[in-house]
């Protein structure tokens, strides 16, 4: 079955072409359903391949399928080839599965939009690129998908192109991603100069000869990580993600929560062996992840735009994933990617349902009391909140717990990182339930018109919510810790072949007894409940008119990151460019040229050749040149 892997990205590509070329010809039904069915077809193929991989001989854990030779020059060759293994098939299922649900949801959500066909074309193009990213069997194909998803993100953020701020948000996302991409590219050049190939299997096989923590491997891993910070919105390149909420909400769910932003995690897990032999880089990743998780969580506690809260929450959760990577807990990182994809997609789609019902309103200060008016949305949103807050037995509990456990047992300062992680987890529970209470509880605070209009979304939108809610509840089953006596940790077993080398190289100081493990879980659950209770006590009677002051205002203003970047980087760059334009270019360089010009002008003016325009003069010089040449040659002979 693996040889049919090309079908998986092919279906969305065809869907893109049909929707793109037929956007003015086909009706809305076809334009919505053809792309959706394309993704569904990919999902079915992925399932079949997944089943194949399950029965694969562990010795030959990966199959590389070459589509064609992308290019070759000298000894350097790049194949357009796909790698089928445990890691890529897992991501295939997430991308196509959740992708399908979000496509269906979009048919309802975008039904009134004039850019309906364009939207679905972009969405399918995105799925295609995302599939390239995870399927590529070398860094170049991965990079193609990597930049491709960035492009689709750009196109979809700026989907409503008439609004200037939306276009600015799109541009910002693309440029910040490009900064990261430069890091990725340099890592690729380093890899090429050392190994002469970018094929994963060969690079990872050759790592044995590399000095652990040596300058080469540190440079490679740090550059790759810079790439990851751009795509996965980590410090310092995270500010584009909240702005990216300008795009349609299903896009935020698919691209800016469930799939694209986890590409950085995927890339590092894919290259896990390189990172394992670069502990310094791992440590930096841990720090960055932790800082991002904490800072984004604090910002999320004071946002008033329903999507902004979720966006900062995403940044924060991504921070958790990077913390896991930082301590070498790659399984936990992937686990959190999966559960997060379920509940964050659910939450985003839920917020989309709210926005849809509120006729486009996104400010939670204008909402309130929606739980009776939008029952399905409310209950599914509640499930999402419980899952992300880490209440057992919902999925978020298990994945977050696994990360916390690894933080706790990681080296001398592990407990400090664990404690800081718990603070972030506490804030997670707090800001999510703050959002829930403000939106769905209390009195309705919007206009009369809005109140009259509020309605539950159509079945096309609520069905995906229900499916995702079920996944958010049960998704944790793929990684139930052994301490519960339910057998082995399925995901850990599944990823074993991918992470084998790292596990051999990385020895955990896993001194936790089963009792200790259960104790930590209990603490985590208590902290999550404390966050919920705090949110309830503060926001059950929410007063929308209260202005934030002091630290709260600072948090509402997002730590002033945007302003700082603007003043420290953007404005000085443009100022410098303007100085170059007016002073250097026009005065220094052009001045020198014009000086030479004037000199010639003065010389030729006497000859009056300029009077007839420059053409004559030029011809004269040409003729003179040829004559001079002839004279020279004459003397030579």
């Amino acid at each position, binding site marked *: 079955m693996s040889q049919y892997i090309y079908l998986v990205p092919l279906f969305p590509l065809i869907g893109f072409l049909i929707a793109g070329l037929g956007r003015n010809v086909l009706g809305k039904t076809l334009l919505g359903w053809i792309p959706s069915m394309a993704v569904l077809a990919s999902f079915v193929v992925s399932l079949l391949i997944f089943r194949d991989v399950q029965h694969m001989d562990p010795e030959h854990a990966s199959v590389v399928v070459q589509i064609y030779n992308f290019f070759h020059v000298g000894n350097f060759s790049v194949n357009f080839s796909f790698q089928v293994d445990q890691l890529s098939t897992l991501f295939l299922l997430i991308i196509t599965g959740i992708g399908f649900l979000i496509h269906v949801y979009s048919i309802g959500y975008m039904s009134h939009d004039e850019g309906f066909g364009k939207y679905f074309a972009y969405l399918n193009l995105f799925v295609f690129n995302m599939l390239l990213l995870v399927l590529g069997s070398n860094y170049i194909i991965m990079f193609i998908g990597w930049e491709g998803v960035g492009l689709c993100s750009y196109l979809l953020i700026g989907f409503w192109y008439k609004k200037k701020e939306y276009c600015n948000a799109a541009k910002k996302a693309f440029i910040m991603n490009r900064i990261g991409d430069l890091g990725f590219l340099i890592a690729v*050049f380093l890899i090429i100069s050392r190994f002469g190939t970018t094929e994963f299997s060969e690079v990872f096989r050759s790592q044995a000869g590399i000095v652990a923590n040596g300058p080469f491997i540190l440079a490679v891993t740090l550059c790759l990580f810079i790439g990851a910070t751009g795509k996965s919105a980590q410090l310092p390149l995270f500010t584009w993600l909240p702005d990216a909420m300008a795009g349609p909400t299903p896009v935020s769910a698919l691209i800016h929560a469930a799939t694209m932003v986890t590409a950085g995690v995927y890339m590092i897990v894919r290259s896990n062996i390189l990172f394992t032999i670069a502990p310094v880089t791992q440590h930096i990743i841990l720090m960055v992840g932790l800082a991002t998780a904490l800072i984004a969580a604090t910002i999320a506690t004071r946002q008033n735009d329903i999507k902004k809260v979720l966006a900062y929450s995403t940044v924060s959760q991504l921070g958790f994933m990077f913390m896991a990577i930082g301590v070498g807990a790659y399984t936990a990182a992937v686990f959190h990617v999966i559960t997060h994809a379920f509940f964050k997609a659910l939450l985003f789609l839920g917020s989309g349902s709210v926005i849809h019902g509120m006729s486009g309103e996104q400010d939670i200060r204008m909402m309130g009391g929606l739980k009776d008016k939008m029952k399905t949305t409310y209950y599914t949103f509640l499930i999402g909140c419980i899952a992300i807050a880490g209440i057992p037995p919902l999925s978020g509990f298990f994945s977050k717990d696994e990360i916390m456990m690894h933080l706790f047992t990681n080296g001398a300062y592990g407990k400090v990182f664990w404690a800081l992680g718990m603070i972030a987890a506490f804030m997670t529970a707090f800001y999510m339930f703050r959002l829930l209470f403000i939106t769905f509880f209390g009195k309705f605070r919007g206009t009369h018109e809005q109140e009259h209009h509020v309605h539950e979304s159509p079945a096309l939108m609520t069905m995906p919510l229900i499916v995702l809610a079920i996944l958010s509840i049960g998704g944790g089953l793929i990684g139930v810790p052994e301490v519960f006596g339910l057998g082995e940790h399925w995901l850990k077993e599944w990823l074993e072949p991918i992470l084998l080398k790292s596990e051999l190289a990385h020895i955990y100081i896993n001194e936790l007894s089963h009792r200790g493990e259960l104790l930590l879980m209990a603490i985590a659950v208590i902290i999550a409940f404390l966050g919920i209770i705090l949110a309830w006590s503060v926001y059950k009677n929410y007063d929308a008119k209260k202005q934030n002051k002091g630290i709260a205002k600072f948090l509402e203003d997002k730590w002033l990151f945007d302003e700082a970047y603007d003043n420290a980087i953007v404005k000085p760059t443009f100022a*410098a460019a303007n100085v170059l334009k007016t002073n250097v270019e026009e005065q220094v360089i052009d001045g020198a*040229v014009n000086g030479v010009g004037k000199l010639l002008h003065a010389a030729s003016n006497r000859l009056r050749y300029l009077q007839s325009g420059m053409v004559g003069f030029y011809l004269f010089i040409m003729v003179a040149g040829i004559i001079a040449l002839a004279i020279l040659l004459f003397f030579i002979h």
Partner: protein
Amino acid sequence: MSIIYLIILAIAVGIFTFAIHKSNTSLAAWLALAVSTVGVGITALLCRIVVRGNDGDVLDQRFDWLPDLGASFATHVNGMSAALCLLASICFVLIILSTINKNIEKPNSFYGLLLLSFAGLIGVFIAWDAMLFYIFWELALIPVYFLCSMWGGENRIKVSFKFFIYTFVGSLLMLIGLIYMYNKTPNHSFSYAAFAQLKDVLTAAEQQGLFWMLFIAFAIKMPIFPLHTWQPATYSQSITPVTMVLSAIMVKMGLFAVVRWLNPILPEAGHTFSTVIMALCVIGIVYASLLAMVQSNIKKLVAYSSIAHIGLMCAALFSFNDIGIIGAGVQMFSHGINIIGMWILVYFIETKFKTKDMNQMGGMAALNPTFAIFLVVITLANVALPLTNGFIGEFMMFNGIFNAKYLNGNTYNVLFTVLAGLGIILGAVYSLGMVQKVAFGDVKDNSLTKENTKFTNFEFVALCIVTILVIIFGFYPQPIIDLVKI
């Protein structure tokens, strides 16, 4: 079928168009289109012959010309020259398509001059004799110089003068250098073979002096910072079809001369100065990208972006790394196609908005959605997004710079790569800024409607050709790589 016939055909038809009566306004355009289309056919065949590599008679030709001077009419076609001849032919087809029905004044002389410059350009790419090379170099230039000074904006005379100063200085330096080298050849010959032996005859100091004389001549043409100021001025004043000739093909003359003449003939000096030259190139990349960011004139923006792109190609040539040099060849081809596409779009909008100021534009995506698609695709190719034709060349060039051979220390490899990499980021800044200003937002000019912002069929065809090439060579770049590496 020899490519020399193409040169003769272009010159003959070019001269004939001058004689067409004023009342006949469209014949010249169709003749020019026919000649360039024939050119595409001939040069495509030529490329095939080069790749097969079994037909030396077609690729190498030699006629006695000025035996007393030791100059002969010798031509030699290799992969890079075949690629550039093909590029020139495709570009002229696209350029002429974009001008049809645009009511250009004095059309007969206009197309005549275009054909003459076409002939000169092809000659430059195939000449295998220094004298012949110089003559073609000037032959390509003179018609373009006329095109710049007779058509275009109000300041065109002043700007053409600047263009002229630069070119004059460059040509003079090259001429002196060539004559000096000619004098040093054992049997006083302009032939390439004789020049190629000079590296054993000339002293190091001579080589270095000659290197700079020729390099400056070529650098002006490309142009390389700080010899570039003629370009934005000329681009913004000349009419856009002429700008296309300049930016898509003429700038490649300088790069081509470096690969074909300068570096093989004076290799030692090239190695010695590669650090300096690559430094100039990468400074130019950052400098031009920064300037592109603050332009409001759309033609100047494209001009500066072109300077940045050319800087990267030149840096890759001086990396003396095989992959880098081939990458530069690939990019010369791709850049030519893409920038023609970009100029066709610029030509279209400057006529519709009746201004070059981007701050007065906006909303074209709502009026003409197809325009927005073309603009986005071509812009993405310009910023080297993967799966567009811009990617592979740029990737190989960066790889070349990263592994450049003759730099004074490894730190420069990293430094130059990162600086040139800044160009990638800044490129996204100004390109997307341009797309946003032109295509997105609200329509500011109320006189524009969906009706009067349609493409002509010719423009549409030309843009489709560009887009198809962008995507085909984005997915499958191997044919160009195979061609230019020979």
